[in-house]
């Protein structure tokens, strides 16, 4: 079969830096081709070249066997190459239907044809297996629903090649399963699918062939059937993966945090749990189950009622500063919007939460801050080309490490990390897991909120599962299985849903 889109020995350099060197790839109609690689391996660059956002420095693109040069993303889209972005690019104030047709509104004469657009939107969303209303305001949708709106928007144009850039990052297993069904339908319809992902389990499940990139180089292209997730990981990292999760040390410390009858208006009702010193407590559940809101409430980031006992004392935090002073820190899942000042350099980012520790008299001691940055770069293995980079210029994994370093400057006694490995490559994941385990070994109580069940099972002593704003149950030791978590999270047994969530 003739590949519809073919990259032949594509290279891309930015100035003196080559980010992609001699990568070849064939996309065939009705086949799902996955591209995997660590952060910085060149996946995004390759995707941007294939979708017309970037021009290759060297090598050729072939469209149905004939050389082609895309003038821009619009040119590529007109040929039927659609790109589903990893980031949500929707206008919050518009309705779902308005977003779907933004910039390509259906018209009747001079006026927009709202009825027709709503009907088409409803049909598209139904095909995707979601129940999102075309009239819902995008602002009120969950992240997962927005992702589906974005997919619907991309698939609205006639498409022959669909490129998905880590689409399941914000999806729960059940929702990911819906997405896989969509991809299966695209494939049956003869669309060529390029699928970029970190999650090797799902790559194994849906891809026909897999291309592995490492440091901008083409490592291998293999039929997915011949490759197990462990092989993929080894090819990506270029070395034998040590055990991903550190060994568990029993948590025998005293109870340090007791939360009872916690309510966060609109999100959480009557939640209760305890945390011991040295314990890693997981919080599982679907996106929107109220996990994030529960801990934002406890740490003073949003209004919250209930009884909290910290080290034996009743406490109530009116703002995050009070929580930090009491030794409780919360690391948001949204590190780009709530964790780091992307347009600032590393140093002010590192010290922002703990400026009081870097004072000489009434003034900032930049020398001490510099030392702290050196220390953080060493301790957390932050890989930055230069200390003067902006936080924006770090890779996702290094941003996460900087974020961790920032909050650890406060010397917390209780640490809550929300989705600690989202958008982070497998090598960094391993480092973050080890760091969390070391933190617990020092007697810190750690709460890990995660949508990746394998991560919770591999890392935590106990897992509390939330559903619909309430605590649905708890699993520990041998009961910690994906089935058990999915059952608590959804209220239904669903082996398929569990399958969907296999991370690396």
């Amino acid at each position, binding site marked *: 079969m003739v590949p519809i889109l073919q990259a032949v020995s594509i290279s891309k350099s*930015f*100035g*003196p*830096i080559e*980010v992609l060197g001699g990568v070849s790839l064939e996309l065939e109609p009705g086949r799902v081709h996955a591209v995997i690689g660590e*952060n*910085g391996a060149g*996946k*995004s*660059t390759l995707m*941007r070249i294939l979708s017309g956002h970037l021009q290759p420095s060297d090598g050729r693109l072939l469209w149905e066997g004939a050389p082609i040069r895309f003038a821009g993303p619009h040119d590529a889209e007109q040929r039927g190459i659609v790109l589903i972005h*990893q*980031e949500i690019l929707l206008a919050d104030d518009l309705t779902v239907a308005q977003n779907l047709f933004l910039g390509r509104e259906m018209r009747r004469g001079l006026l927009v044809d709202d009825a027709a657009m709503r009907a088409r939107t409803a049909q598209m969303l139904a095909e995707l297996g979601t129940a999102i209303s075309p009239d819902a305001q995008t602002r009120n949708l969950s992240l997962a629903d927005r992702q589906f709106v974005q997919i619907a928007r991309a698939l609205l144009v006639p498409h022959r090649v669909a490129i998905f*850039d*880590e689409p399941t990052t914000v999806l729960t297993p059940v929702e990911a399963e819906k997405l896989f069904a969509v991809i299966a339908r695209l494939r049956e319809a003869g669309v060529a699918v390029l699928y*970029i992902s970190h999650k090797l389990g799902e790559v194994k499940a849906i891809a026909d062939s897999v291309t592995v990139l490492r440091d901008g180089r083409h490592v291998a292209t293999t039929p997915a059937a011949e490759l197990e997730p462990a092989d993929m990981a080894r090819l990506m990292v270029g070395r034998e993966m040590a055990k991903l999760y550190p060994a568990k040390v029993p948590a025998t410390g005293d109870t340090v945090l007791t939360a009872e009858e916690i309510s966060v208006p609109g999100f959480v009702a009557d939640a209760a749990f305890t945390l011991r010193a040295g314990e890693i407590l997981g919080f599982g559940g679907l996106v929107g189950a109220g996990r994030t809101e529960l801990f934002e409430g406890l740490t003073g*980031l949003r209004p919250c009622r209930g009884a909290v006992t910290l080290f034996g004392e009743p406490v109530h935090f009116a*703002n*995050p*500063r009070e*929580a*930090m002073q009491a030794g409780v820190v*919360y690391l*948001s899942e949204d590190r780009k*919007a*709530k*964790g*780091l*000042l*992307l*347009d*600032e350099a590393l140093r*002010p980012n590192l*010290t*922002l*939460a703990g*400026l*009081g520790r870097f*004072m000489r008299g*009434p*003034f*900032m001691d930049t020398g001490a801050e510099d030392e702290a940055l050196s220390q953080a770069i060493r301790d957390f293995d932050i890989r930055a*080309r*230069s200390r*003067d*980079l*902006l936080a*924006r*210029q*770090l*890779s*996702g994994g290094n941003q996460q490490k900087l974020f961790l370093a*920032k909050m650890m400057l406060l010397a917390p006694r209780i640490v809550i990390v929300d989705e600690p490995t989202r*958008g982070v490559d497998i090598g960094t994941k391993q480092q973050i897991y080890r760091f969390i385990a070391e933190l617990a070994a020092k007697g810190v109580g750690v709460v890990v909120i995660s949508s990746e069940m394998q991560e919770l099972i591999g890392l935590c002593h106990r897992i509390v599962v939330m559903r619909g704003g309430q605590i649905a149950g708890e699993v520990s030791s041998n009961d910690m299985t994906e089935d058990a978590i999915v059952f608590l999270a959804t209220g239904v047994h669903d082996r398929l849903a569990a399958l969907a969530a296999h991370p690396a």
Partner: protein
Amino acid sequence: MSQVIPRLKTATLGWRPDMRALSPFIALVALIVLGTLLNPDFLSLSNLTNVVTRSAFIAIIAVGATFVIASGGLDLSVGSMAAFVAGSMILVLNGMGGSDGGTLAMGLAVALVLGAACGLANGLVVTVGRIEPFIVTLGTMGIFRALIVYLAAGGTITLSNFGLRELYRPAYFGQVAGIPVPVLAFLAVAAIASVILYKTPFGRHVVAIGSNREVARYSGVPIGRVVTLTYVIQGLCVGLAVLVYVPRLGSATPTTGLLWELQAITAVVIGGTALRGGTGRIWGTLVGAIILEVVGNIMVLSSLVSEYLIGAVQGAIIIVAMLVQRSLQRER
């Protein structure tokens, strides 16, 4: 997996001048050259001293505005506030009746406290009331302006005590070591302000809030307190500007400080501070204020454009400054 790679390019090219920080200085030099070409008198010491002295009010107010804007806020009320504070201060001085240093000091203190109080009011409505700063200060702009009209009964409030006028005169017309007092005043204000903005935790918090309010909140920055304080600093700067302004004419009228908010914001933007917050350039602001006065001076000294159009030119400058800022932004 975002697009980090293209940006690394700039980091590898080594040192590059920060055009945003340099552009106001380059613009000032260009204007001085232009002014000299149009009229050689422009470069005379007396003219330049005069220009810089007259930029003092706006410069001092604009230093305060730099804090507000760096934190992502805006204060439109500074012009009316200056008029209200000036009028109130003169009324207090007249009311006390003395002509000694003590009376004057009392009047000066009243101006500073009143300015800070006006700023506090702005800040509290913005933070506690959670209302857009644009709306809040648009409202207080009207309130302060009406108050000065009311206090002056539509006329002029004049410092009546002749002895006090003589005592107070040097605050605008005096010199120390050949440098006019207003110039010393704005240099001192800028020096103190840059220490506060660049060297203290408060300054870091201001910039962090302007850069990303949510990140600041999640980092435990006391947002309400910091934002309120920026408006207090703005009010205090207005009070300081009034101290230098009143001895110049010895009076306040309903048109005192008209369009000063436009000039102050323009000075800040010309100086390289982004209007969306996240950066603050005190010395750039100072240069911005001087640029505005230089432009006016060139218009008076040359016959290119009628000096009655000075407001139009200043309005055009802020728009051009924004365009330049944005093109520099893209370049980065």
